[in-house]
């Protein structure tokens, strides 16, 4: 079974993240860039499926040169090879444009199953699986908390607020995963050393047969027009208990929509 995992490098959600005021895109140069946390679950699931079913796991990422670090981490966890689409013209692309690049890259690969995280922690749009599925005309199974592959079908438990839906689709299909699906492994020291020797194929837009005019900030379907920092933390609310402290406390929580 050929499995492709879509991996994105994002600014670490645990550190300060900024937009670049020059073009309102994510400021990657000054950020502590890491592999998107949710993608680690997708990688782990791909490795588990591969170990059960056989085959290969390919990591696919679209991003600048620095995204190599995310690829290396995925390879050191155990993925077999990687494709890195890197082209300056892609900078500032919207989700719709990026999905076109990913779909074009997938069309040059053999795949039975595409896995990805249910969302990226930078933009949090959660639309990529649907966009890619539409472009490739394959089914998408979104928000999996469990995945099984058998008889040419992918079956998932789609996580919901109240429980789950059992959903299935014929392969090839794209499956997005939540962080409830598994516990990602750490890279091992052996894996780190082995990752150096695993093939990473670099592709440009031209290699994918795409025109630079189909991507980039100037041609994006949506743009960030303006942004502002989080307002400074205001003064706290002081409540004087005049025998009604409990009620005031509950009222406060209710006003904050906490209860």
């Amino acid at each position: 079974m050929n499995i492709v995992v879509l991996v994105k490098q994002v600014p670490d959600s645990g550190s300060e993240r900024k937009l670049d005021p020059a073009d309102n895109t994510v400021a990657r140069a000054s950020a502590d860039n890491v592999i998107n946390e949710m993608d680690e679950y997708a990688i782990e699931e791909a490795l588990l499926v591969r170990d059960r079913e056989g085959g290969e796991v390919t990591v696919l990422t679209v991003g600048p040169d620095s995204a190599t670090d995310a690829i290396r981490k995925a390879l050191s966890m155990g993925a077999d090879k990687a494709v890195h689409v890197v082209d300056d013209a892609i900078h500032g692309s919207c989700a719709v444009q990026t999905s076109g690049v990913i779909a074009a890259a997938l069309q040059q690969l053999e795949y039975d199953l595409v896995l990805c995280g249910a969302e990226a922690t930078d933009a949090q749009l959660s639309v990529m699986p649907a966009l890619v599925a539409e472009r490739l005309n394959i089914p998408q199974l979104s928000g999996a908390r469990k995945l099984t592959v058998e008889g040419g079908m992918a079956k998932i438990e789609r996580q919901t607020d109240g429980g789950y839906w059992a959903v299935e689709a014929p392969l090839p299909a794209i499956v997005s995963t939540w962080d409830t699906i598994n516990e990602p492994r750490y890279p091992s020291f052996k894996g780190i050393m082995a990752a150096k020797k695993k093939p990473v194929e670099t592709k440009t837009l031209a290699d994918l047969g795409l025109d630079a005019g189909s991507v980039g900030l100037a041609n994006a379907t949506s743009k960030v027009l303006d942004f502002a920092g989080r307002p400074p933390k205001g003064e706290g609310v002081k409540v004087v208990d005049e025998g009604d402290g409990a009620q005031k406390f509950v009222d406060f929580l209710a006003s904050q929509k906490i209860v």
Partner: protein
Amino acid sequence: MPSLILSRRDLDFLLHEWLDVESLTKRPRFTEHSRETFDAVLDLAEQIATDHFAPHNRTADLNEPRMVDGKVEMIPEVKKALTVFTDAGLMAGSFDEEYGGMQLPHTVGQAVFAWFKAANVGTSAYPFLTMGNARLLLAHGSQEQIDTYVRPELEGRWFGTMALSEPQAGSSLADITTRAVPQDDGTYRLTGNKMWISGGDHELTENIVHLVLAKIPGGPPGVKGISLFIVPKFLVNDDGSLGERNDVVLAGLNHKMGYRGTTNTLLNFGEGVHTPGGQAGAVGYLVGEQHRGLTYMFHMMNEARIGVGVGATVLGYTGYLHALEYARTRTQGRPAAAKDPASKPVPIVEHADVRRMLLTAKSYVEGGMALGLYCARLVDEEQTAENEADRARAHLLLDMLTPIAKAWPSQWGPVADDLAIQVHGGYGYTRDYPVEQFYRDNRLNPIHEGTQGIQSLDLLGRKVVMQGGSGLALLGETITAATARAAGTEWAGFAADIDAAVARMGAVTATLWGAGDPAVTLANSHVYLEAAGHLVVAWLWLEQALATGTADSDFHQGKRQAARFFWRWELPRVHHRFDLLESLDRTVLDTPDRWL
């Protein structure tokens, strides 16, 4: 948020901007490595230390191991963390490929392991001891012993110990009484008691490999009659499976001030609780030759002492980082110039005296880290430098620096934790904040693996006079080579002060050894150790300052400011100590115990 365990930024600075560890990848042993693999394994260490070691540091402190029905019970988080550590291949990382290792340079290996010590020194003691045990066997054990014991250790299936001390003999190993009687089959039977044995018993692994110092009857007296034995908890069958229970049993656990997650044991050997082969006596296997046990043990101890020094540094380091974070968020008081009592209180880091404490701690812990990694770099040089002359030079300098690398951080790391408590004020004295634990944990380091007193005798009594004083001369040359590089820079004044201190150290050493009475020479050896340590760390602060070049980030400016601090506030301390030494002061020597 940046980690409060250690500063990755500082490690990267020391490893790459100063020590240039990437250049090691040109050497045959390290060709498989690159900056990429160094970064990845440091990332891995930070992640596992953060996820699996730091979270149970306090839990382990509050729930000491207990002895129940002759066995040790401890919190399950310890085993889980060590399983993750081993599964990631970190036990074997620095070892040879043929033993499952990755041949990571020792310098990077020290930085990697520093994450675990800083996150949870109690849990990290088990692999620390096991790696030291394995190194010793690789250096001095037979191939059969290596295959039987080292491989399972590096796979994390068995852990190791170092059993030197006895209830009546710790620093003075000449007085140990554990006996090893030769048997017809070439094995030995050991009887005796060993005290303070960390990791001496537990259920973490299938087997425990004790390395035990004992005397063979009829051998030479004193340290020249000490031999080294492998005494496994379970005997090992020819196929590697576990056999009979050996006659080594847990007699009790010590209840300590810190390091509470590490079992610390009294072990009885050969009391007949178990009777392997039908008779009492712990079965032991001689390592190397008879009566050379202490030499073998000290081969390991030298590396262990650098590791202890790094441990003392990083416990101070994490204390400093916690204090810094606290000082930046805790508001109290107003600047001296603020007149309006209604104005908002400021973060306490705004107060000069709090900054004094933080800068002091920063200069100690970053100075200590530089010392530890420099010595680790010397280990790499000693083992892999291209020509014999460079290897010999590294060996000599490392030998000279080892007592300082162990003792200086063990003295000043706890002071950094003391300052971290002080920055926290009353809160730091409570168990609601972690700094009091760091202090308690760190208080062991001036004691174990050779006390401060032992280190001072090693430095003044052996190291500065060995090979006709060539170790001391080499240290002086190395330092003055660095001060020469400072000519024409803003650090020329610092370099001149260091040069003066180097010259003073040479003169004082000559005076001490010219006294004609070793009792006088060695009476104030601790003062000598302190002065030498501060001088060495001043040099390493100069090295760091020079390595910052013209970089002007806050990080680099902080480095330079800490260097200035050490120059102006700390280096001058050496002269008071040299004054005292130069006068051949007899105050301590001439104090009879009845006056105390």
